[in-house]
């Protein structure tokens, strides 16, 4: 690697290494959890009538008769090959079941993030360009409220008001009619999921835009007679976006967690619903596999966000990557 590119490359390498470590850590945790399950999985799954021969056969097939470290190695090897185990109820591969419902969760999360950015950024800009006004103060109160109130409470309240009291929007499911129907059924769930992030983003945009607007290059641009509109939207906004993008990586993880509740409350298919139903039926391989997929998705998004961060802020490419990432 050349001398100029090396800090950036080193940063990339260390980020990749951490990502691998996190995924590995998650796999080990999930494996250890299955060791801690009370009782023999065989008797749990096969029922009390299973004969010793059937149980022994089950143990052999699941590899339960081997030492723990071999089982861990086997588990890791299987996961690397894309084998997340089998659904104990239907016998289908867990990966298939997860991939089946994953698009619903990804759509929900993506629409929610889109909504949060589309609403949060303009609100934050408004607040930053009108600091101290009534509007700014009301926005501050509204932001902290939606941030603080748990999103499953928001989801239930939205359901109560818009579906049950006002009867404006269909309540549950993803609908079976075409695109229009699915889109309408996305409105409440994605709003419920997005609201707290509208608050986060509005606050963050306000703070960072105010910071940027106080910098010398803005004063210089004003002295050059650029219009306020050009200054705010062309120069300041680009710089002010960086913290927001950084927080979105975190946001994806929280939103994936929040999606579980929204999927349950609005009875939508998705990874969250899958995990929840699997918990109810003690279908541990499905819990294990789905959680692993969520963790992998989460760290990959974080990695992507970190990379795009470096792309948007050229200073990072110059080598202060590590310090910035730590801050």
């Amino acid at each position, binding site marked *: 690697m050349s001398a100029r590119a090396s800090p950036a490359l080193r940063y990339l390498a260390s980020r990749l290494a951490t990502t691998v470590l996190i995924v590995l850590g998650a796999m080990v945790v999930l494996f250890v959890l299955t060791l801690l399950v009370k009782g023999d999985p065989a008797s749990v799954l096969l029922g009390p009538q299973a004969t010793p021969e059937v149980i022994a056969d089950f143990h052999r097939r699941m590899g339960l008769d081997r030492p723990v470290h071999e089982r861990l190695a086997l588990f890791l090897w299987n996961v690397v090959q894309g084998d997340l185990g089998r659904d104990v109820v239907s016998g289908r591969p867990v990966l298939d079941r997860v991939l089946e419902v994953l698009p619903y969760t990804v759509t929900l999360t993506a629409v929610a993030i889109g909504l949060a950015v589309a609403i949060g950024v303009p609100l934050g800009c408004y607040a930053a360009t009108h600091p101290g006004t009534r509007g700014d103060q009301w926005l501050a109160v509204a932001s902290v409220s939606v941030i603080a109130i748990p999103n499953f409470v928001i989801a239930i309240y939205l359901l109560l008001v818009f579906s049950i009291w006002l009867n404006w929007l269909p309540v549950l499911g993803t609908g079976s009619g075409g695109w229009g129907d699915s889109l309408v059924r996305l409105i409440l769930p994605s709003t419920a999921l997005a609201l707290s992030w509208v608050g986060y983003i509005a606050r963050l945009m306000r703070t960072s835009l105010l910071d940027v607007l106080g910098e010398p290059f803005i004063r210089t641009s004003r002295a050059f007679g650029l219009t306020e509109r050009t200054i705010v939207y062309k120069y300041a906004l680009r710089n002010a976006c960086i913290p927001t993008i950084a927080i979105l990586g975190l946001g994806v*993880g929280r939103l994936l967690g929040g999606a579980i509740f929204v999927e349950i409350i609005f009875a939508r298919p998705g990874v969250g619903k899958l995990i929840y139903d699997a918990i109810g039926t003690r279908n541990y391989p499905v819990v294990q596999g789905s*959680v692993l997929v969520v963790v992998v998705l989460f760290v990959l998004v*974080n990695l992507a966000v970190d990379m795009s961060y470096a792309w948007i802020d050229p200073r990072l490419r110059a080598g202060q990557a590590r310090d910035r990432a730590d801050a």
Partner: protein
Amino acid sequence: MTAAIVPVADGVAAKVWASATGRIGVVLVALVLAMAVLAPLIAPANPNAIDVSNRFAEPGLAAPMGTDHLGRDLLSRVLHGAQIAMVVALAVIALSLTIGTALGIAAAYAPARTERLFLIVFDVISSFPSLVLALAMVAILGPSLGNVISIVSITFIPHFGRVARAQVLTLKTAPFLEASRAIGVSRLRLVLVHIVPNIMGPLVVLASMDVPVVITIEASLSFLGVGVRPPLASWGTLLYDGYSYLTQSFWPVLFAGLALSVATLGFTLFGEALRDAVDPKQRQVP
């Protein structure tokens, strides 16, 4: 020594009270704490007493918040929910603050390699989507108050560990520490008497900011049925029961959601006011 912390602690209460949001936070927090402490005294009925003939009663004189799907008195259940929320929040914060601070201090004084290992472990734990992982762990290990507390604590330890380490690093070369070492103060005494009081400020702020998050996680897990076990009344359980019978009665959802929101909003406002009072420079989201 402690002299360094006094100017910081001095006037913090006044500063918190001086901001409008801080005042609201203090009042809401006081309200929730009062609910939790006084629940057994002021609850009008046994929160678990079932009376099926009186289910889904509207709020009235007999039951100020109405009754749920089993005819249990909602006000009493909401009050006892405050108790659960506070017990879990305080236990988690106390555990993770203590363990995290100890690990953070240890990391700061450990050899470079060990320190790096600590940081990697902190990084890995805090990079998990904690709610999802906690959900899987509690689901597999079995739901109980103890499991919820210990698992959620683990996810919060890195938070405190990292801040404690950073604080110790800035403090390490302070003349008074060198002086105490020079006069032969033991390591343990050095840490407990000289270091801990001086790094507590930011850690307490962090702890207060984490309270609403812990309350939310407990309620979320209970909502999914993997938190505290029935018949214990957690706000999350109340919300789930209410949600299941939403078409029959909306009062349970309304009041349980309100109580939970008052608690998380109150602690958020209080935590932010405390942070601004202790160190205005730390102001940032989230």
